[in-house]
């Protein structure tokens, strides 16, 4: 099932999600949108579709746009066939117009991983010299990763498998759990192993994942 989120064009423009922003800036400049790469379906309405309602059920042909190259849409009929940039020229479009963004799970995952990578690089750059683990985890970029919530947990665990580091507080903040035994504290490799074990037990990581 595709994942959906609903935002206004104004929110889209100021959204933290770089993929949203990229799509908006392309659309705003009336350039062709590479929807295959970023979005499956974008539906534009003053009165938005109900979340989860597919645009093909929409009766308002004037305001619905569909990328027919979308594999999710294959074999279905859709209203409208105009390009997104044409719809954005219509008077009913404003900065408060609602946009439903449909993304496949794999696309959503890719955006999440790119975001994690970007924030973690900034975090390492700003806190690499800190000896205080407490100061490391109070960093702005680290806290933004924490703010990504449960969806980022598998990404952090895979990072721990690849490169053990100070992700333990983030995992505890997000999940409310702490599998690290008192005698393992400070031993980065053993702390990482404890989290990877718990991740497998909870289903946050594949069982086949390397330890």
């Amino acid at each position, binding site marked *: 099932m595709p994942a959906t989120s609903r935002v206004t064009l104004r929110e889209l423009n100021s959204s933290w999600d770089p993929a949203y922003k990229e799509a908006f800036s392309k659309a705003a400049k009336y350039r062709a949108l590479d929807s295959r790469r970023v979005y499956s379906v974008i539906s534009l309405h003053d009165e938005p579709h109900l979340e989860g309602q597919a645009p093909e059920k929409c009766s308002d042909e004037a305001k619905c746009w569909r990328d027919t190259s979308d594999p999710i849409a294959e074999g279905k009929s859709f209203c409208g066939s105009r390009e997104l940039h044409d719809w954005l020229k219509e008077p009913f479009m404003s900065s408060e117009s609602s946009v439903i963004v449909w993304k496949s799970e794999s696309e959503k995952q890719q955006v999440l991983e790119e975001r994690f990578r970007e924030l973690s690089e900034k975090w*390492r750059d700003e*806190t*690499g*010299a*800190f*000896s*205080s*683990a*407490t*100061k*490391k*985890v109070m960093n702005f970029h680290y806290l933004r990763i924490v703010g990504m919530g449960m969806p980022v947990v598998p990404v952090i665990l895979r990072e721990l498998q690849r*490169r*053990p*580091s*100070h992700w333990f*507080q983030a995992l505890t903040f997000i999940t409310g759990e702490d599998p690290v035994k008192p005698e393992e*504290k*400070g*031993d*980065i*490799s053993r702390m990482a192993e404890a989290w990877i074990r718990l991740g497998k037990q909870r289903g946050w990581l594949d069982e086949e994942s390397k330890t």
Partner: protein
Amino acid sequence: MKSPRLERDFPNLRSTAYEVKSEEDEEYNCIAWAANVKNRMIWWWPNTGYWPREPENDASVQEFMEVLRAFLGYEVCATSDLEKGCEKVALYVDHDGEPQHMARQLPSGRWTSKCGDLEDIEHELSGLEGDLYGKATMFLKRKAS
């Protein structure tokens, strides 16, 4: 070998002698390195890392002094001057009064430090002073091993 990254974080290194001695390593920090705790090269820090007791004063100078005395055999001394038969460490304290780093004196009189996740370096005491670590204000010594 020099490090542009370290010189960015510690501008005093640009005007003092220092040398990078290792690769980066995220598995141990300055305390393990300075105290020469070779059997436990881990990340020491109150609350968020290994700490040999339940911290009574969070990451305060008092907490560090008590642990360094009780668990690692150090006693306070007045200066950073080289003393024969003694191994000295310096505690860097920031402007909020919180310890941020510990360096160990080498028999040559120079200092060795593990800078967070980054490299081990040999340096002058003032080389790491600045916004990040503050100043080297407390000195402790123990019998050289």
